[in-house]
């Protein structure tokens, strides 16, 4: 058995142990030595078993002990590098009940960034100012939220918010295939922030500004033809701001995760 210790440049609290060969019970001493070398501030260990031929149950037991230590430090010990052939070879029944398993170390690091560092992830979409494009865009954002673990209710609300903001951006902006609407999404485990910017149509700015007047925001009549979208966005979000000072109108919202 051999072990290669890989430090991660911008992640002082995470480390990768790349084992190879046979991890049987007489290698426990070597495994313990490896763990004793790591810095005390490390709380996330990725055990890469891609080149491992066998793992004995006593080694799994030992790793469980180290996992407990990492969890106590607010982190985890996870297994990476398991694909189907390794799984059948190692006969790892039930391993997923004990450890979190990732196909490769990078996915394990991504999970660390998201779950432990609570790192926000950014998505940028640019699309033409056309109402027909809005449904695919709103579903994209809703699906991303679901994929990142947000519940159905939060994802559905986000879909509504994106729909309303983008419809407004199309309605109040210049249209044409060459002009695009830019949507930036920042998502972390607690909240989503969205910025939607169009190219403003000067002729439509007066009506937009009228909608944005405080009295309209606080007292929207539901039977009015306009302004319902903005009222809905306001109700569904935790923060809403509109900036019409540049060549485009930017709407910024923040939505805190509820579920």
């Amino acid at each position, binding site marked *: 058995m051999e072990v290669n210790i890989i430090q991660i440049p911008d992640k002082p609290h995470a480390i990768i142990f790349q084992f190879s060969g046979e991890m049987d019970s007489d290698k426990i001493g070597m495994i313990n030595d490896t763990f004793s070398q790591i810095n005390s501030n490390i709380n996330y260990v990725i055990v890469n078993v891609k080149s491992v031929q066998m793992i004995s149950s006593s080694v799994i037991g030992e790793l469980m002990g180290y996992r407990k230590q990492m969890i106590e430090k607010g982190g985890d010990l996870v297994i990476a590098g398991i694909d189907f052939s390794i799984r059948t070879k190692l006969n790892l029944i039930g391993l997923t009940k004990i450890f979190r398993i990732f196909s490769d170390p990078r996915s394990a690091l991504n999970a660390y960034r998201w779950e432990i560092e609570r790192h926000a992830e950014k998505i940028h979409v640019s699309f033409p100012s*056309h109402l*027909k494009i809005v449904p*695919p865009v709103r*579903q994209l954002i809703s699906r991303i939220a679901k994929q990142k673990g947000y519940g159905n209710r939060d994802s559905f609300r986000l879909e509504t918010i994106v729909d309303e903001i983008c419809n407004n951006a199309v309605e109040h902006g210049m249209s044409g295939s060459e002009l695009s609407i830019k949507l930036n999404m920042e998502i972390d485990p607690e909240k989503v922030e969205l910025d939607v910017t169009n190219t403003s149509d000067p002729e439509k700015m007066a009506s937009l500004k009228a909608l944005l007047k405080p009295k309209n925001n606080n007292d929207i009549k539901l039977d009015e033809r306009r302004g319902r979208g903005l009222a809905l966005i306001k109700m569904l979000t935790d923060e809403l701001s509109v900036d019409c000072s540049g060549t485009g109108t930017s709407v910024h919202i923040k939505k805190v995760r509820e579920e």
Partner: protein
Amino acid sequence: MDIIFPYKVSVRFPGDLEYIPPIRKFVSELLQVSNFSPKFAYRSEIIVDEICNNAVNYGCRTSNAEIELICEIFEDRIEFTINDQGSTKENLDQLMSVIKQPIDPEKDIQHGLGLEIVRMLSENVDVVIDEKNLTSVHIVRKREDIEQK
């Protein structure tokens, strides 16, 4: 009001596999609202999936790497360009060997199947690797006969 062709949509997202399912479905829906057939949309969904998987697996060296997918939708075709943020020499060698040599699914069921599918589903596939090891893949897929719509 109908959509005016051509138009361009771009998405930039973190180099993580979990973003790919929403993105490939997004492209499929874009094509359907642009009056392409469900079959064309489905096949394009596969192309997007495979090229994004390759970009994530081969072209994301750092943990904050991003992938950019650009779709140019014309009346008769779609063109995809996918840019990654740099790869290692080993990854690129592996990628190039897959590009040069068609794979045999019986022998190697893990690598290269994706690009083979992309090749079969599109008219043209170009892979450009620049001096900084940044990879850009450009794919053209034409609309099928009107009967298939």
